[in-house]
């Protein structure tokens, strides 16, 4: 798998010595708590170049799958592979994640960016002002990060993740508690990152958002991977009963 050919998708300049991150895949992924299989035998291939949206009802295992893909959780069984290699800290260093509730350091806005720039990654370390300008927070640099509004906090979290120049960016319902205007700003920033070649994996249960962002949809139901198809097809002709119910807004149990 890690031959050079998979690199064609990307415009992110990779040092030639570094093995490609994508495609990613999971093999027989299981995450069990007690007797409950919260993620159950998921085989998923993650291709480059498209925005992948993970959908499903509450408790379907979306966030768990994201954390397993990022290596924040250890699977009970099965494997997560990035570029054909087992997930480890080396891979996680080339990824970034934005959480549903932004976790900001109790410092100024600028200091939050400087903190990740100081982690010794091999990134270009843009001036903090430029990083903040990208998300429209340039005039807030000296404010305490935790005094920002919810939308601004999430933009800062996103800016901080992007400052790491990740090859894969995970987003776990980043706009779940934001108003439409803030949501639009976040989506815009995410799509720009996608345009620069960052692989986007986005968890949402907002159908409109999934339509706006998604090139392909991964649909989970009770921890199982039910559908994995191009976004148009998923929304027009969902193949499974569970997805049809979900899209129709019926209660999925």
């Amino acid at each position, binding site marked *: 798998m890690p031959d050079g050919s998979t690199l064609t998708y990307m415009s992110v300049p990779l040092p030639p010595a570094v093995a490609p991150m994508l495609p990613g895949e999971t093999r027989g992924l299981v995450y069990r708590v007690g007797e409950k299989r919260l993620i159950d035998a998921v085989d998923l291939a993650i291709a480059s170049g498209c925005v992948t949206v993970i959908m499903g009802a509450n408790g379907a295992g979306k966030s768990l799958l994201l954390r397993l893909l*990022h290596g*924040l959780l250890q699977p009970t069984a099965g494997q997560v592979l990035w570029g054909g290699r087992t997930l480890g*800290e080396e891979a996680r260093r080339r990824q970034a994640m934005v959480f549903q509730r932004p*976790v900001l*350091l*109790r410092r100024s806005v600028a200091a939050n960016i400087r903190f990740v720039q100081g*982690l010794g990654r091999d990134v270009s370390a843009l001036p903090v002002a430029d990083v903040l300008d990208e998300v429209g927070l340039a005039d807030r640099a000296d404010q*305490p990060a*935790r005094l920002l509004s919810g939308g601004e906090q999430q933009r800062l979290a996103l800016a901080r993740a992007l400052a790491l120049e990740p090859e894969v960016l995970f987003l776990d319902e980043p706009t779940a508690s934001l108003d439409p205007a803030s949501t639009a700003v976040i989506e815009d920033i995410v799509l720009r990152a996608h345009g620069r070649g960052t692989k986007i994996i986005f968890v949402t249960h907002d159908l409109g958002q999934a339509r706006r962002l998604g090139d392909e949809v991964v649909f989970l139901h009770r921890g199982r991977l039910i559908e994995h198809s191009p976004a148009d097809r998923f929304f027009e002709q969902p193949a499974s009963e569970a997805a049809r119910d979900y899209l129709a807004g019926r209660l999925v149990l």
Partner: protein
Amino acid sequence: MQDFGGAFQFAFRLVLTADADLIEIIGLSLRVSLSAVGIACLAGLPLGAAIGMVRFRGRTAVIILLNALMGLPPVVVGLLVYLALSNAGPLGWLQLLYTPAAMIIAQTLLITPIVAALSREVIEQLHDEYAEQFRSLCVPTTTAVGALLWDARYSLITVALAGFGRAVAEVGAVIIVGGNIDHLTRVMTTAIALETSKGDLAFALALGIVLMMIALTVNTGVMALRLTATRHAYA
């Protein structure tokens, strides 16, 4: 009653004229208690941070023990240090009994559990908040510890001040290991106890006033810090 009022007057005069004996006693009090706080923080903060951040077997038992030790009676600590430092004790050869050093040791033992237990709580709370983000960012452990201590600095200063308040106000431990020797190991609390029993209420009152002012200052400081921290949303 007239005596009482007179005692107050005399006490204020002592304070205002900076009576030499009074200053010496206050100086020693501060030296002993501040040293104890310093050492207790050096030991207690890392200990608290470690227990707050690391999950290990028997952790709950350690936390319960620490919390219980917060309420250690000063006289018991004094007795234990006395036993250790007395000529027949294991550390008798150090010849520290009835010196300020012995008092520092006793107060350090008294407040290290307080510093450790309170900082454990502070660090654990912040760690729970940061942990997943830090794992995602692959933050090295040393950087993570530094970030936690720095971001919790306002709360941790409050912890240190709580320790200081306890140390400077206790009498049981220092009177046992210090012996309340004039010009050598006499601190505010032991002096108050002695002068009261001697009937020299004015001097005791003067010291009491100073002690109250120190307590007031420390608490004002704690409050001001909390307000600053809240205003900047660091708390």
